[in-house]
């Protein structure tokens, strides 16, 4: 850490590749991320819960300000993991596998919440809690994939051994992300089509769009804050495991 000459020579990417430097940097960034996340969520939901009722959906439109960010996050988190999977397979980045393992449970929680809040919204608006249409089914498949990934990353004692199969599972599973996004266009679904990320711009008045975007930003930053904390913990866990093995070897000697 005190070796400044080595740090000056290496690029930012390689600086982050060193887990000790990563712990230093992330420790400084972490509190700010939580603060920004909290602020974004508070402002976004504060504005969102005071919007006028929608002409079709009434006050249930308020569920949108959490449902849409959760749905966005469950796709974004898998995408973040896919980039990390490339980091594992192509560059053998030492933190890439840590990133995947740390992100999986957070992704699973947000996917479950997207499904649950959607279901609660669907009941009064569609008249049903659940329907096996393309959008709902593809997100449900994503949830199952998160669970499978959690099992895989925690099945093997030696963390390095699970890295490669986990990265491959993440990359193969990425095929589901465009399927989820475009399911509402490709198939006849009960779920409404996209109204924010679409070719002709958002199809939503600013009264709803602004709180939605602020809330989505807040939850996105919250994910990165939680992910950073979980990654730091995973690095420590691996150190604890390595040191425990070292201690056991010394006890034998």
């Amino acid at each position, binding site marked *: 850490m005190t070796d400044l000459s080595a740090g000056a020579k290496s690029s930012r990417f390689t600086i982050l590749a060193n887990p*000790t430097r990563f712990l230093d940097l992330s420790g400084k960034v972490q509190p700010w991320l939580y603060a920004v996340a909290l602020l974004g969520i508070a402002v976004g939901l504060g504005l969102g819960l005071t919007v006028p009722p929608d002409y079709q959906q*009434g*006050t*249930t439109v*308020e*569920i949108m300000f*959490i*449902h849409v960010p*959760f749905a966005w996050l469950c796709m974004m988190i898998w995408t973040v993991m896919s980039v990390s999977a490339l980091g594992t397979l192509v560059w053998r980045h030492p933190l890439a596998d840590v990133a995947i393992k740390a992100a999986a*449970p*957070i992704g699973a*929680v947000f996917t*479950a*919440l997207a499904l*649950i*809040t959607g279901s*609660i*919204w669907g*009941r*009064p608006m569609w008249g049903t809690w659940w329907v096996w249409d393309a959008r709902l089914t593809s997100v449900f498949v994503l949830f199952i994939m998160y669970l499978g990934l959690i099992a895989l990353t925690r099945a093997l004692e030696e963390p390095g051994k699970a890295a490669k199969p986990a990265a491959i599972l993440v990359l193969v599973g990425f095929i589901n992300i465009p399927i989820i996004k475009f399911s509402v266009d490709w198939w006849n679904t009960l779920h409404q089509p996209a109204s924010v990320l679409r070719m002709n711009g958002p199809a939503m008045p600013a009264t709803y769009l602004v709180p939605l975007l602020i809330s989505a930003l807040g939850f996105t930053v*919250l994910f990165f804050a*939680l992910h950073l*904390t*979980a990654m*730091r*913990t995973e690095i*420590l*866990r691996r*150190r*604890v495991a*390595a*040191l*425990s093995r*070292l*201690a056991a070897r*010394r006890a034998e000697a």
Partner: protein
Amino acid sequence: MQSEYFAFITAAYGISAVAIAGLFAWILLDARTQRRALKTLEARGIRRRSEVGGRAGQDTEAAK
């Protein structure tokens, strides 16, 4: 009508708040557990090679 929807909205927000709070608590507890485990190991004189400042096997603290 309004009160009927109120239950749905409260349920959606409530479940989300509980789930995220639970996730946050789990991540924090896990972080604390690992930090403590590392401290315990270091207190026993078991350190990483890079932190000992020399090659492996130079750690004399473990010899006592």
